[in-house]
């Protein structure tokens, strides 16, 4: 039976303002896939619900998972205070992750925006393809840049123009004249909408990772749904569950 378990924090450091990079020792590392996420439970019982946090990197050999997350509220603020040896309560691995087979051997864009950048790292590591990694940041705090560079050609966009293309990831694609057969992406909703439109015009598939407020994380509460083109298999009402049917969807299947 699956169960919530307490894992051990191996290390943690702040890699940009309010962005934390944590390695966790857990048996979940053995079969974690890129694009899957963990439900992490704060210890403070005034904040009860699991925080959905994407898996940034896995090290199956060491039995370790890496998460990179932003402080968004009381729960993530608590996590940011954990140090080596502390327990961290989690449920995983949740969701389906990116369909690697759809990109194998092709020209792919791996696109991340802001706190959507982290899951792109493990995806870039695992995917065997012509990888163009296009990541967007608010400013010059280019967290995970050095890690990403190892696994593909990296293009950066910053909103304030402090590095790479001034603007967003779509501007970076245009400025560099890039082309792809398939897109994988995670980031804020406006970015995902732009990617859906871009992929639609070119009639190429785009696998986008969605985010929504969640409660259970296992498909029972129906809190985190997204409107779908086809009737969903659970409730038969065009509302798929992001936690279990996603979080990655082909952009044409969802209304974002």
């Amino acid at each position, binding site marked *: 039976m699956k169960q919530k378990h307490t894992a051990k924090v191996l290390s943690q450091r702040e890699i940009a303002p309010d962005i934390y990079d944590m390695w966790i020792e857990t048996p979940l590392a053995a079969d974690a896939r890129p694009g899957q996420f963990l439900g992490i439970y704060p210890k403070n019982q005034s904040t009860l619900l699991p925080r959905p946090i994407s898996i940034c990197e896995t090290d199956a050999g060491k039995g370790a998972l890496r998460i990179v997350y932003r402080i968004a509220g009381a729960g993530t603020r608590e996590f940011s205070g954990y140090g080596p040896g502390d327990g961290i309560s989690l449920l995983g691995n949740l969701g389906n992750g990116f369909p690697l087979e759809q990109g194998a051997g092709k020209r792919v864009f791996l696109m991340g925006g802001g706190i959507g950048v982290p899951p792109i790292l493990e995806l870039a590591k695992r995917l065997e393809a012509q990888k163009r990694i296009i990541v967007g940041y608010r400013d010059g705090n280019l967290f995970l840049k050095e890690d990403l560079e190892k696994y593909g050609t990296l293009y950066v966009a910053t909103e304030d123009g402090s590095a790479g293309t001034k603007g967003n990831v779509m501007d970076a694609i245009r400025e560099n004249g890039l082309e792809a057969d398939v897109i994988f992406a995670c980031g804020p909703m406006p970015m995902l909408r732009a990617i859906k439109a871009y992929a639609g015009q070119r009639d190429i598939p785009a696998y986008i990772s969605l985010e929504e407020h969640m*409660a259970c994380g296992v498909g*029972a509460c129906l809190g985190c749904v997204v409107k779908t083109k086809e009737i969903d298999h659970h409730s038969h009402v065009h509302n798929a569950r992001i936690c279990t049917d996603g979080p990655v969807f082909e952009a044409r299947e969802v209304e974002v």
Partner: protein
Amino acid sequence: MPISGMFESARYARKSAQRGRSMNTQVTLAGVTLKNPVMTASGTFGSGMEYSEFVDLNRLGAVVTKGVANVPWPGNPTPRVAEVYGGMLNAIGLQNPGINVFLERDIPFLKQYDTKVIVNVCGKTVEDYVEVVERLGEEPAVAMLEINVSCPNVKEGAIAFGQKAEALFDITKEVKRHAKQPVIMKLSPNVTDIAEMAKAAEAAGADAISLINTITGMKIDIHKRKFALANKTGGMSGPAIKPIAVRMVYQAATAVRIPVIGMGGIANAEDAIEFLLAGATAVSIGAMNFVNPCTCVEVVEGIERYMEQYHVENVTELIGGLRE
């Protein structure tokens, strides 16, 4: 899995018996005997499928399903959930696949397990409720019906029937006229006098009542200056509401002779026992399933430990078992 699950539960029963004194955890609700008083709260457990990966459903007194309507309901726009201090708000809006899919998919799934199946029924009109109740009447695997007249998150039906004693009386009467299984009316805490509501349900022939459903609440995001939920209001659940729920269960249980199923913020066996002592015959675990998917079974085990510790031979001794 279900078979090994049954084996597990048989082994557990033996183990409990071996601990010495005989211990009886059975309770009876309107003629339906549950192996223990612990069930799931509607809407927090789906039809058990998702949580069957985490808990052995054979260990539960009953599985209470998410509300089922006559046709599929899409539910509300997102965000549908928000965390609040010691609890959460939800405005799912009763998204459900409708009675056809429920009977074809969810009932066969639940039939595999040795637990009672209680189906929560929702509707926009009296006719909607009756249609679902009649369809379920043909299904022997369904032990009881729980009628949702208390969901605060849909515009029509549900709570509209649950906030006035006359309306509650009328729908209870109508449902009872068509129901083949015992009927539980699920009451809303969003009323002035819960005892009056409990009495209205009893007078109309309800076989049991369950309470509390969620308490209507609101959360505002001060950074965005927006409501946290697309529905603006949502139902509050979680440990923060427990004292209100215990009080209401006590008031309802004192007002009626039919059994009361207590719920509202139960996080562990101690909480569950509080509800039993307040007069509940059974208890439901709701929001805490989200916090620990194994909560239900932990509550079952905790009640057994409490019974051992206090030499309680029969769990029914705890029901309304407050001392002067």
